[in-house]
């Protein structure tokens, strides 16, 4: 009777869970969408981004796709020049580009001075064929600093076509189209495609794509390892179901609420896999031990005992983990808020499955065959018990190692940095990195920092004092190792001054006469393309845009350039000019800083919340402190090691420390809860430790082994950020696990909690 009712109940639970899963699965299929536009990731109302967006609009600052045409024999021949012309014209005709945003030797103004005047011409319109005209073209280019080294390499073997692109216009299809387009111009020339949109776009695409191939393998390995430790197809199946269903529910809810999947959202299944298997392992571990100790117990008895003993730690671990993730809501970055909130939802879903679905499965599928259960009682003599004793014996060693690691980590944490580089996410040997290096070898650099200067007063940017300072600043900042070039309004004035003095190099400087500067600008507007001027200054000369080119997008290199720029801030301020930054590279730098800061803030908050929650659960503050030890150690080591080894974090790997909260807390609570139960049952401290280590310690070990092996698979990923993800998850699992069964256990033992009355 009772069993029949339970059976109906079990089937009902299973049906409801699967129906809801089908509903969420349908939502995913119907409504899921990826967000690859990186601007959408940034907090739109953060002052740095608001400012940068505004400045980008003022000066039409966009990232450019770079097409490099290389001819080892030199580009000054009709074939190569024809290709440069064709590439330029065909790019201009593409709907993704505005004609004025495509720049090459073909479109460039050649402003040259002659004895009696000024000549503003194209370098060529019709492709020249006579040797004489080609020679003339070559010398025109070589004597024009505004083109030489910018659009044509100094050696004359590579020419660039730069096509600035709106942020939203880039897609993988478009990239493929551009690649095919570029390839069609090959032979004998080589044609390369690079630029920030290409790198960003490919990364946004490659990460999730690689994850799609890797996650099934991770799951497969986890299945195999789960089976190896559980020795049961049913147990493996239902544990896995918890993870899969909670992932589907989470992504289904995202789709239902019409929230796009961001790049960091791929971390949600990573977290759910690592955390979700824990409940199943602990439940089954308890069930197995119960059946071992109580031969002949019925299914109903076994399930009842399991739930009675385990509902509390399963619920406590899940709630604390969820609260840990919810603390990510303090982040300023929207996708990370979603990541925190929805991982929390997934964790709660996994809890519901563990408490309802797993017992239902056990009921319907039955328990493990009794014969596979070893009859030997391991509690007093097994590996777990031995280990418990050994830790006690070597307590000095354990404590010393912990302290040493802790100290090293704290030193390391000071050195943690997050690299906003997109390029360094790719293999050194990948086409993207190679092309970028190739272009950096011949030109100023593929990355840019825009320095925006502003004054309250009209005309300040065209005053000779300002321009001379700008010119000096450009020269000085260009001395920074990776800074390869710069461009500003000062370059126009220098060029005009030189050509108006019959190309005399002595006049390649800013003149001391403000009226002359104003007249040069007027002259340029009348003879050249005035649009070019509005990329470096504005209508009333209150603002200027100074562009620095860098041969690397590494955060450290960007910061070095910024340090060199900041030196000029006081002198600019004397002229009433304020200095700010803009552009995608700078935004990425600020953005990653926000992520790191938010992550550390949320970790500190989680630890405080965890201490409070554990204190509340076990009604003792000491336990709260001890329980937080694995969490704190995992987080410390995770950041500390990265800092010490000078391995930069990335946007996604920074989030992995959240796993420290999720896992560390689970281990601690399961362990302490079990310790508490045994302490009450036995009243013997040593026996309690032995039993706890054999019971909880065993489950924790299984859990750690399963997840570590699963995530180590990611080391074989073709996408380097996913490799670091795998390594870091595994490392965090290992730290949490070792910290729980060594130092935390030792602290519990030494603190005599639960034994107060007797000792």
């Amino acid at each position, binding site marked *: 009777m009772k069993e029949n009712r339970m059976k109906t109940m079990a089937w009902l639970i299973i049906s409801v869970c699967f129906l809801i899963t089908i509903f969420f699965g349908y939502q995913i299929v119907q409504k899921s969408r990826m967000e690859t536009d990186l601007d959408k990731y940034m907090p739109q109302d953060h002052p740095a981004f608001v400012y940068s967006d505004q400045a980008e609009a003022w000066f039409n600052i966009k990232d450019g796709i770079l097409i490099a045409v290389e001819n080892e024999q030199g580009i000054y021949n009709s074939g190569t020049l024809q290709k440069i012309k064709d590439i330029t014209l065909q790019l201009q005709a593409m709907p993704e580009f505005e004609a004025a945003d495509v720049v090459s030797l073909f479109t460039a103004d050649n402003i040259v001075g002659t004895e009696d005047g000024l000549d503003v011409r194209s370098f060529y319109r019709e492709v020249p064929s006579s040797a004489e005209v080609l020679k003339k073209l070559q010398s025109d280019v070589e004597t024009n600093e505004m083109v030489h080294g910018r659009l044509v390499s100094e050696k004359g073997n590579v020419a660039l076509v730069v096509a600035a692109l709106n942020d939203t216009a880039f897609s993988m299809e478009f990239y493929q189209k551009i690649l095919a387009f570029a390839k069609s111009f090959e032979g004998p020339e080589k044609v390369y495609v690079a630029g920030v949109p290409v790198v960003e776009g490919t990364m946004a695409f490659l990460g999730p794509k690689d994850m799609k191939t890797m996650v099934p393998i991770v799951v497969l390995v986890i299945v195999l390892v789960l089976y190896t430790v559980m020795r049961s197809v049913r147990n493996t199946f239902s544990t896995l179901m918890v993870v899969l269903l909670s992932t589907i529910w989470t992504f289904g809810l995202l789709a239902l609420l019409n929230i796009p999947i961001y790049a960091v959202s791929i971390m949600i299944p990573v977290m759910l896999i690592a955390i979700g298997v824990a409940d199943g392992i602990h439940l089954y571990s308890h069930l197995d031990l119960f059946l071992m100790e109580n031969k002949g117990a019925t299914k109903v008895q076994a399930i009842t005992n399991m739930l009675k003993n385990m509902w509390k730690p399963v619920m406590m671990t899940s709630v604390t983990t969820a609260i840990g993730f919810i603390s990510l809501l303090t982040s300023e970055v929207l996708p990370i808020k979603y990541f925190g909130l929805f991982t929390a939802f997934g964790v709660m879903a996994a809890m519901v499955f563990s408490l309802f679905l797993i017992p239902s499965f056990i009921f319907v599928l039955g328990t493990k065959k009794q014969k596979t259960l070893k009859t030997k009682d391991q509690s007093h003599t097994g590996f777990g018990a031995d280990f418990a004793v050994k830790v006690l014996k070597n307590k000095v060693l354990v404590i010393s190692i912990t302290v040493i690691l802790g100290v090293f980590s704290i030193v390391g944490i000071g050195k943690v940095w997050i690299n906003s580089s997109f390029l360094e996410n790719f293999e050194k040997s990948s086409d993207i990195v190679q092309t970028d290096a190739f272009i950096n070898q011949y030109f100023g650099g593929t990355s840019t920092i825009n320095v925006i200067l502003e004054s309250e007063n009209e005309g300040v940017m065209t005053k000779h004092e300002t321009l001379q300072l700008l010119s000096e600043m450009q020269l000085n900042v260009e001395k920074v190792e990776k800074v390869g070039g710069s461009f500003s309004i000062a370059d126009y004035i220098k060029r005009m001054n030189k050509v108006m003095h019959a190309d005399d190099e002595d006049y390649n400087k800013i003149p001391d006469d403000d009226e*002359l500067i104003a007249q040069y600008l007027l002259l340029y507007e009348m003879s050249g393309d005035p649009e070019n001027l509005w990329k470096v200054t504005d209508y009333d000369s209150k603002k200027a845009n100074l562009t620095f080119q860098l041969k690397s997008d590494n955060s450290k290199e960007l910061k070095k350039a910024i340090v060199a720029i900041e030196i000029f801030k006081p002198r600019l301020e004397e002229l009433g000019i304020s200095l700010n930054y803009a552009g995608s590279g700078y935004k990425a730098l600020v953005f990653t800083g926000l992520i790191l800061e938010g992550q550390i803030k949320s970790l500190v908050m989680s630890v405080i919340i965890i201490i409070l929650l554990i204190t509340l659960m076990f009604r003792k503050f000491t336990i709260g402190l001890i329980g937080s030890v694995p969490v704190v150690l995992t987080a410390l080591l995770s950041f500390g090691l990265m800092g010490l080894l000078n391995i930069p974090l990335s946007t996604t790997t920074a989030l992995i420390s959240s796993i420290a909260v999720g896992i560390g807390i689970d281990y601690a609570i399961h362990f302490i809860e079990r310790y508490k139960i045994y302490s009450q049952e036995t009243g013997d401290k040593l026996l309690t430790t032995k039993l706890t280590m054999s019971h909880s310690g065993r489950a924790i070990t299984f859990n750690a082994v399963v997840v570590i092996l699963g995530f180590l698979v990611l080391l074989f990923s073709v996408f380097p950020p996913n490799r670091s993800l795998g390594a870091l998850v595994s490392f965090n699992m290992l730290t949490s696990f070792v910290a729980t069964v060594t130092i935390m256990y030792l602290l519990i033992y030494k603190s005599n909690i639960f034994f107060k009355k007797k000792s």
Partner: protein
Amino acid sequence: MKKSQFAALVLLAGLISLAQPVWSQMNGKQIMEAVYARPSGSDLQGDLAMTLTNKQGDERVRQLRQFITDNGSIEKTLMFFLSPADVRNTSFMSWSYADGKDDDQWIYLPALKRTKRISSDSKGDYFMGSDFTYDDLGDRHPDEDNHTLLREEKLGNYDCFVVESTTKQPGYMYSKTITWVNKDNFIGLKREFYDEAKMPLKTLYIHKFEKINGFWTILETEMVNTQKNHRTKMVFSNVKINQGIPDNKFTERSMTLGQ
């Protein structure tokens, strides 16, 4: 070839009817020929205030005094900047030739105290950073396009022909233009320009025109570039026509004398 300012005044606007009674039978080509043939004076002087507005709404105003003469084969233009102050007395002269030869252009920079020749191929298409190309300001011969009368409609208070003109020259910067021609005086009152990809590019508006010394003359016009969200307004004042400006006004020496 670049066409001048003068032609701008005269041709964009200066469209006097040849044979008013025949309008009902006129086709597109005849209408545009009537626009082209509208008489203009042989010289003009006056002040021009040019206001440029960019997409952020920033404005720049330049004031110039200009002198134009046209003897049928050479059109000579001389302009002096009156403001802003730091470019005052900067002067610009251009001679453009009816036979299609490249324009001759000179600039005098008072801060440098030197007159320089400027040579430029068709790249310097836009007139002084404005939304007008030299072509927009010039007299495009009706034979260069195919014309179709699309419809007749009212534009404001004026009865207009609406004529579509499609270029015969491949690769020309405008694939087509659509012009609203005032039936009464053959002044083009509005013109839409379409780019090479046949997308709307710019719209020209004539805000004010008057008969001066017997010639219809445009006094206020605006070009709006809808793709760049940029606009240029030109306001002419103190316009005098056929005052007999001496030819020696248009010399390098007189450029240096200021106005």
